[in-house]
């Protein structure tokens, strides 16, 4: 057996003890044999399993799956698109924009900062139908004038109150409790026990008329409504004193206390390419979506969306006979993306999102222009128009599908 065979048997781990002995003897005295062993090992080591040199190209992989009518999931399915310039430049651009808007709003925009800190507990609770009448009557004049904008508290002008009424206005503002007597004086309390004590002392020590103070006909008024002079009375309940104390936080709905906004959307949309193509089977949740947004400020929200939808895809390739084959399909997509919602006016917002589908076969973006509607039935709604696009690649060619439609969302 020559030195080559001895070395190769040894490298393969199939040498016998006799072969090993011969090899080691040879290596001890023969420098050429030593060099040969090192070179064999070096060549063997160049073929490490998993070496990317032999990984099939993304294009080859996609060709196999496309020709079989399959979709490749995972990294390879996304690779052609990830390699494209669009994703290379657009993702950093979107991320930079988001960071800028977030930073600006969070650190530099004082108005929005105030809104952020004040967005909780912005509910004022009034204890008299007469006050309601006053506000309704004077909402364009006295209320506006009497508003303490610095403290974001509505003051009731004493002159506008019916002298015979028992008027106590109670605000829950930030974490302060405020009581306003019918003389217009305001008292601040750090907690509701102190407030209750104040009411109790009024009931005990004041005049007989004031002892008639009641907490009936509690009316909830949204602070922002007061500021805008577009007061809307949304709830009229009868509470006893005890009920009131127990329910004062219950009256604040989850969406008012929380910094999160959740919406279920329905969005009938229409492709901008004409086609009669339809999926073999539409998803049961087609054109339905859900988004969860975090209120960075009252105007600016960030979050995620997941939507079930279809896009019409039309792409082509040339076959070996130089014929152009046109493929048309409308797959069901489950799209997941990042969302920015910004109120450009009071209730008018722009909603943009960018993301991909669960099979990473493209990137979509969506723009919505809509209006918020509050306290209807008694829910809150979003509605408006939307435009969305899906960008994908096939055979190194890039394609985009567009659709246009309306959307309607229920917030909770």
């Amino acid at each position: 057996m020559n030195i080559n065979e001895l070395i190769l048997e040894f490298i393969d781990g199939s040498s016998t003890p006799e072969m090993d002995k011969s090899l080691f003897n040879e290596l001890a005295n023969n420098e050429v044999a030593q060099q040969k062993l090192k070179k064999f090992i070096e060549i063997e080591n160049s073929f490490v399993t998993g070496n990317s040199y032999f990984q099939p190209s993304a294009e080859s992989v996609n060709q196999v799956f496309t020709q079989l009518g399959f979709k490749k999931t995972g990294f390879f399915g996304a690779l052609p698109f990830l390699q494209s310039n669009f994703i290379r430049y657009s993702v950093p651009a979107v991320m930079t924009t988001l960071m800028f808007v977030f930073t600006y709003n969070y650190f530099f925009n004082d108005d929005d900062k105030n809104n952020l800190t004040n967005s909780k507990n912005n509910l004022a609770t009034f204890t008299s139908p007469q006050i309601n009448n006053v506000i309704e009557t004077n909402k364009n004049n006295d209320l506006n004038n009497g508003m303490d904008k610095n403290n974001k508290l509505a003051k009731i002008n004493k002159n506008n109150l019916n002298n015979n009424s028992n008027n106590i206005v109670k605000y829950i503002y930030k974490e302060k409790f405020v009581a306003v007597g019918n003389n217009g004086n305001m008292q601040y309390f750090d907690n509701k026990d102190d407030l209750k004590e104040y009411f109790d002392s009024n009931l005990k020590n004041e005049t007989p008329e004031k002892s008639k103070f009641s907490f009936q006909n509690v009316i909830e008024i949204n602070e922002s409504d007061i500021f805008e002079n577009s007061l809307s009375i949304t709830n009229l309940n009868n509470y006893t004193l005890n009920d009131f104390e127990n329910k004062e936080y219950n009256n604040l709905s989850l969406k008012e206390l929380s910094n999160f906004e959740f919406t279920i959307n329905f969005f009938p949309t229409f492709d901008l390419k004409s086609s009669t193509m339809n999926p073999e089977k539409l998803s049961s949740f087609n054109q339905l979506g859900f988004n969860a947004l975090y209120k960075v400020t009252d105007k600016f929200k960030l979050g995620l969306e997941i939507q079930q939808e279809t896009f019409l895809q039309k792409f082509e390739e040339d076959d070996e006979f130089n014929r152009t084959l046109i493929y048309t399909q409308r797959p069901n997509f489950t799209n997941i993306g990042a969302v920015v919602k910004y109120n450009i006016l009071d209730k008018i917002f722009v909603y943009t999102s960018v993301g991909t589908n669960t099979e990473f076969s493209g990137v979509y973006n969506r723009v919505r222009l809509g209006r918020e509607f509050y306290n209807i039935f008694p829910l809150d709604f979003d509605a408006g128009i939307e435009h969305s696009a899906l960008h994908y690649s096939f055979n190194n060619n890039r394609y985009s599908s567009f659709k246009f439609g309306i959307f309607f969302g229920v917030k909770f």
Partner: protein
Amino acid sequence: MKLQIHKNYKIKSDSELVDLLRDKKRISEKAFEAIFDRYSYNVNAYVRTVIGDADDSADIFQETFIRFYNNVRNGAEITNLQSYLIKISRNLCLNYKRDKKNNVEVEDFHKIVNEENFYENQELLEIVMRALDLMDDKYKEAFVLKKIDGMKFEEVANVLDLTLEGAKTRVNRARVKLLEILDPYIKDLEFKDK
């Protein structure tokens, strides 16, 4: 309601995956993907090594998996999945090679490597692949099956239709031949490392 207990196709055995390939399309698609993920590297390594040309080897690589899928759907019986895939790609490579002749000579190889300062710019694997092009296909494919695809000598013998001893001899001859071709460049590489 039918409860699906186990959906992770990646940990299923070769024979389980082949059985699932004959199932309805949704399941078949997942099984195919698992097989593809498991063996596409090996098939591609074999085809790339034997064919050399990147475009042509990509075509053969794709055709291998498409034929494999169609064969299984048409009832082909498979005992060793990796060997079966390599046999398909080998037949395709043989058909391709029938009309092609390897016209690279040893002198050409040295000229290319020297002129391009190849060893200074490329991984050793690149040089090895170029060197493999100089060998007869029978040595080349034996080498790639054993050393790149990691087959046992028994499996190499099965794919190449050789005896066990014949497969071993062929692989080892390829290794010695490769060393002879690469000898001057490995010296250079060693010098460069120092």
